């Protein structure tokens, strides 16, 4: 069944098809439409779930944690300041190994007060132990929502799927909404390893002494390390059922490229267009889309980028005092590539606070990268006029 829907509703439909059992959320622009649609599905009886209204995002995540500990498939959605308010509990969710799935609609952090997109909100939660997927299209959003539950529940890890505010969240596209029986086959009811059981009462999240804490963190890290392999298996299965797959990263016309663009989220679609034009003109320019940011797909990135002459990373985010966050992580991943295969990396900071990244902007970045001998600095800001 194909339906035209906005990105936010692609999330709602993904959650519906995943048969989530508990939803707890607090409204925030530009996320609200996700849980609004879900609340209507619950109220109308289409979705058999508990919808827990709360007074803050901190409580929303707390409610999700409580629900997830009981074994329920649990979902929430938020943005920006709301995600920041959840911060403490994001650790509780991952440390408790709870497979909660959350949609974060990327919205720049205030102040100045803003509702437009950039990725600093989700990337600020880099170290909380959540899987992170940055989606490009509404179809990918729908598919990734369902896949995230399967992946999260297989590995007992929470997962965050991330969408650009407005460019994706509020933009309509056709989405092939997979039939329920297909999704049910792909994603059966959750089975949890640990859950609250009143006949065998235990304490969850209690004091852990130094002689065991590291072992728990090690197991968390091992689970994260299993994500790429497990994701491949899950995507194989999904592809068999629906014909669609995305990968942790995607290489687009990157064969023999001298210059590779690295993008994430909706900037990728614009970059595809620019790459097509440049290829038509015979220029050896390709594209690598990074969908998965945590765990970091180090092996995939090394393989994709090694051998290119230059790499231009487009970051719609930055870490004050350092640079674009994707660029810094990619730079770190490339350190182990032998010097003769290691590309020169140009890290561009673009489109903060929702500023449009047009084909002209990307063309400018390509020209600037090709002309330069070396990057002038680690973070190259695009379009800043002072």
């Amino acid at each position, binding site marked *: 069944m194909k339906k035209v829907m906005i990105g936010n509703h692609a999330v709602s439909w993904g959650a519906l098809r995943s048969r989530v059992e508990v939803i707890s959320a607090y409204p925030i622009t530009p996320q609200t439409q996700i849980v609004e649609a879900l609340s209507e599905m619950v109220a109308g009886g289409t979705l058999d779930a508990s919808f827990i209204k709360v007074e803050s995002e901190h409580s929303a995540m707390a409610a999700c944690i409580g629900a997830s500990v009981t074994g329920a498939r649990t979902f929430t959605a938020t943005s920006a300041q709301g995600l920041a308010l959840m911060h403490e509990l994001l650790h509780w969710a991952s440390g408790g190994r709870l497979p909660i799935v959350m949609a974060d609609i990327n919205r720049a952090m205030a102040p100045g007060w803003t509702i437009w997109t950039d990725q600093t909100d989700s990337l600020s939660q880099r170290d909380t132990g959540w899987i992170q997927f940055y989606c490009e299209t509404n179809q990918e959003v729908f598919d990734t929502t369902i896949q995230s539950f399967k992946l999260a529940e297989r590995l007992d890890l929470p997962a965050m799927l991330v969408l650009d505010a407005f460019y994706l969240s509020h933009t309509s596209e056709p989405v092939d909404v997979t039939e329920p029986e297909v999704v049910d086959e792909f994603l059966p009811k959750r089975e949890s390893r640990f859950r609250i059981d009143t006949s065998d009462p*235990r304490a969850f999240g*209690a004091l*852990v002494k130094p002689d*065991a804490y*590291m072992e*728990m963190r090690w197991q968390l890290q091992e689970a994260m390390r299993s994500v790429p392999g497990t994701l491949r298996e899950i995507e194989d299965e999904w592809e068999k059922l629906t014909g669609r797959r995305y990968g942790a990263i995607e290489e687009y016309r990157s064969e023999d490229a001298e210059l590779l663009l690295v993008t994430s989220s909706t900037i990728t679609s614009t970059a595809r267009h620019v790459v097509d034009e440049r290829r038509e003109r015979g220029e050896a320019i390709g594209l690598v889309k990074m969908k998965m940011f945590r765990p970091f797909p180090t092996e995939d990135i090394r393989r994709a980028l090694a051998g290119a002459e230059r790499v231009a990373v487009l970051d719609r985010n930055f870490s004050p005092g350092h640079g674009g966050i994707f660029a810094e992580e990619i730079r770190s991943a490339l350190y182990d590539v032998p010097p003769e295969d290691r590309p020169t990396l140009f890290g561009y900071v673009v489109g903060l606070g929702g500023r449009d990244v047009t084909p002209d902007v990307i063309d400018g970045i390509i020209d600037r990268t090709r002309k330069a001998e070396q990057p002038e600095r680690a973070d190259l800001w695009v379009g800043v006029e002072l």
Partner: protein
Amino acid sequence: MSDRERDVAKPRDAGREIPPIAISDRSTLVNPTGSWKYIEPRYEDRVAPCNAGCPVGIDIEGYMYLIGLGKVEEAAELLLRENPMPAITGRVCHHPCEDACNRASLDEPVAIHAVERRLGDMALAAPAPPPAEKSRSERVAVIGSGPAGLACAYHLARLGYATTVYEAAPEAGGMLRLGIPEYRLPRVILDRQIARIEAAGVEIRTGVRVGRDVPWSELDGFDVVFVAPGAHVGKDSRIGDAEEVDAIRPGLEFLKQVNAGGRPDVGDHVVVIGGGNTAMDCARSALRLGACVTVVYRRTPVEMPAIPQDVKEAKEEGVDFIFLAAPTVARSENGRFLGLECQRMELGEPDDSGRRRPVPVDEGRFTVIADTVLTAIGEDCDLTFLPPDVQTEWGLIQVSELGESISAPLFAGGDVVDQPRSVADALGSGKRAAVGIDRFLRERAGEASDALDVTGLRFAGDGNISAARYVHDDPIQRESPVNEVVTWEQMNPHHFRHAPRHEDRYLSVEEIRSAFAEVNFGLSEKEALEEADRCLNCGVCNRCELCLIFCPDMAITRRDDGSGFDVDLRYCKGCGLCAAECPRGAIVMTREDL
């Protein structure tokens, strides 16, 4: 790798299985978190303000609680323990309970009167319960079958005494029958309620005026006499002269005539003098006889002693009011009464009652035309029937808190003692006297008394006496009760939902003007139960279980018999959440070992 490196790298209990999450391997009962606390919660029920504000001393909160449990019959039973005539007070009481209701701070007070009325009517529809066993040998005579006399006799009968009520009028009821018009209190309700009091073991002898029809010596066989004759003599207005005597008449006399079925010709224009309940009853009765009615009152609406609801109803029915005016002389021409000349007044300094005294305004004279003037400026008691050795003062009998006069074994109550003149206050004085008489007789019989002091018997110390408390019983088994009113500030409003008050339904104004049919229909059974559901059960645990839900240590458990909750102090860490969340202020935090 050296052994040392291996030791550092590996956990000390190598080989043990460490789970991926922090989960205990057994129940946390091994951790007595109660050792952390220095304060602990205690369930302490307090007194709801309605109970304290009720002159009858009804456990309103208690019956609301029972209705909440679906125990409607038990609720009616509890009500009847404290009030012999709920079908009557539910209709005519000025319900100060509602003025005290904490719910007013949330939205609107609970319509307690309507719930009481419905319970009273339901009890009348059910078979009468058997009378109490006559366990006492003493006998009590009661003079007067108004609310005070009937209440005293009823409560004494429940305490096991044989009681006989003497009523001068042909039918029992006192002012309920003689003074209150039928449109406020249908006679069928009055008759059935009195029949119920008789069925409870009270003997009523009507048409017998003690001191005239039978001598006082006939009462010698009784151990105690309770005197409650009521106030039946209208105060003299001192206006008019002999010529106008037919046109100017005491309002109470008019009311008695109408209430007995008479339909006197009052002409087209009736003026009622006064601002109390008698004035309102006169005005509305005259209206029903077809007259245009004007009430002349010397103060302002604020100072009117009448029940505000009755004033409102009178206005809605079409009664006119002239405030700040006092009649001075009757005007007549050629022997024909024309009306009253009145003096404009203004409010001056407060008088002894605390109300501002009206003083004349210069040049402020005007005339109101009238065919009949009904004076309703207060009533006095006729005490001429009393034996000469009974002491009276200012036309009243002085009594103790429990109704005992210095001429014991003579007790008194109702309008003949110094207290507000309302049905509820009369019922309350009858109950107090019943307790006083029981104590008096037991003391005289040399029986040990383990009764609480009177303050303990009264709701919150200064409300009226609870008959249930007097027999050491609490029909709803309150937990560690503290005899203090719970204030709104002591409660937690955040768990209450707003809900509009159910308003009584009325006969339309068109329907009432020519008939004496009951004006107020009250609430349906369903509406009354919904209204009872609005009760917040102030100060009393109603098993809402919020404490149990909020306790982070799961230290609160429900008792198997449903009588309440226990706090497991081994695990309560004294956080105080239960006390903070309790909507009713029924949990307090106390210092451990103090």
